[in-house]
């Protein structure tokens, strides 16, 4: 079986490696597909649905981060339908929690905000839900603000897969889902947290942040996670 396949992305012929996902193949050729839960180096989960693409012959939209390439596949990454759904997803994310950007540590350095701008969101058409969401500031160095969490689970995965501690998980159901520390303890009471801060660096919004920063001051380096994973892979 050949280890290379030919696919078309937006009409352009691309040679991808077998086993690659559509998202990987697209970004390898410099094509942009919006995503929030994807972080290079972590296992893809298809949580945010922003990377949905159209695949010829498939009736439903597929998340490009979890769909492997197949020979002869024809993928569309931009269309009116996709733009429509992606904007809707972003607006629903904003409506689901209390994203008060003006007072957020990650204002202007936020992946959610940047994507909203890029995809042309100027307001949220759905009524905001204004949930009562807690802030866990018990950890000495870091703080978790559930108001800003989009449940991308990057922190869950980086902690479990890279650090090996698995401090984080998601508890609850539906809109009541919340990021939980171990079996729903305060962060300070965690027995497995190593205070490495990888969860903070991987978080696309201001949900996880280091203490001591005011609004707009928290700049994260999610790419260091990707580099770390790459370096670990090279050593193994």
């Amino acid at each position, binding site marked *: 079986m050949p280890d290379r396949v030919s696919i078309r992305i937006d009409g352009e012929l691309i040679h991808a490696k077998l086993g690659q996902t559509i998202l990987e193949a697209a970004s390898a050729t410099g094509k942009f597909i919006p995503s929030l839960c994807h972080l290079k180096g972590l296992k893809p989960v298809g949580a945010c649905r922003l990377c949905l693409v159209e695949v010829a012959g498939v009736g439903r939209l597929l998340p490009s981060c979890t769909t492997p390439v197949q020979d002869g596949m024809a993928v569309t990454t931009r269309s009116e339908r996709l733009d429509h759904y992606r904007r809707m997803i972003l607006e629903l994310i904003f409506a689901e929690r209390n994203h008060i950007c*003006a*007072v957020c540590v990650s204002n202007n350095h936020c992946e*959610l905000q940047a994507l*909203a701008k890029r995809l042309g969101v100027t*307001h949220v058409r759905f009524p905001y839900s*204004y949930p009562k969401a807690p802030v866990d500031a018990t950890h000495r160095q870091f703080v978790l603000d559930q108001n800003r969490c989009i449940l991308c689970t990057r922190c869950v995965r980086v902690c479990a897969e890279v650090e090996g501690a698995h401090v984080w998980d998601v508890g609850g159901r539906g809109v009541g889902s919340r990021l939980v520390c171990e079996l729903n303890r305060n962060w300070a009471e965690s027995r497995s947290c190593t205070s490495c801060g990888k969860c903070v660096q991987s978080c696309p919004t201001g949900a996880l942040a280091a203490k001591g920063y005011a609004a707009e001051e928290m700049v994260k380096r999610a790419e260091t996670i990707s580099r770390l994973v790459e370096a670990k892979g090279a050593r193994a």
Partner: protein
Amino acid sequence: MSKARVATVWLDGCSGCHMSLLDLDEALIDLAPKIELVFGPLVDAQEFPEGVDVTLVEGAVSSHDDLHLAQKVRARSKFVVALGDCAVTGNVPSMRNQIPPKQLLERIYVDGVNVNHRVPSDGVPPLLKQAVPLHEVIRVDLHVPGCPPPAAAIGFVLTELLAGRKPELAGKVKFG
């Protein structure tokens, strides 16, 4: 050429959006001859007038007065602009939305002070249950996000509207 009748309205916001409008500086001199400012915190009018061409609304809808004024603005304006994050998203004023108004006011005016333990009621409008973005109560024709929106964005919006075009802001302005 007749002047465009422009109004500005200050609901639950910090006036920062109005400051940003004033930050247009010398560009205001070019706009001034084309505009008649008929209502807002920058002029004296007491009653929101009829027949307004463009109204810029700053602030979230937070009290009964805000709601009534917003409805009047819609009824009497051809084009309504939600100016800034409070009008567009609720922003900082919406941070009270998890707390019932009665509890909130008592926490501030009864528990939070040493003298005069009383929630003010004279001359202040009752709060709505939640502070909401403008488009949740009236139809909005254009959203200009930003906290505050940069002066250049406000200038662009006004210039385009005066030229009879609807400004296209999607992808150009930061959201939230």
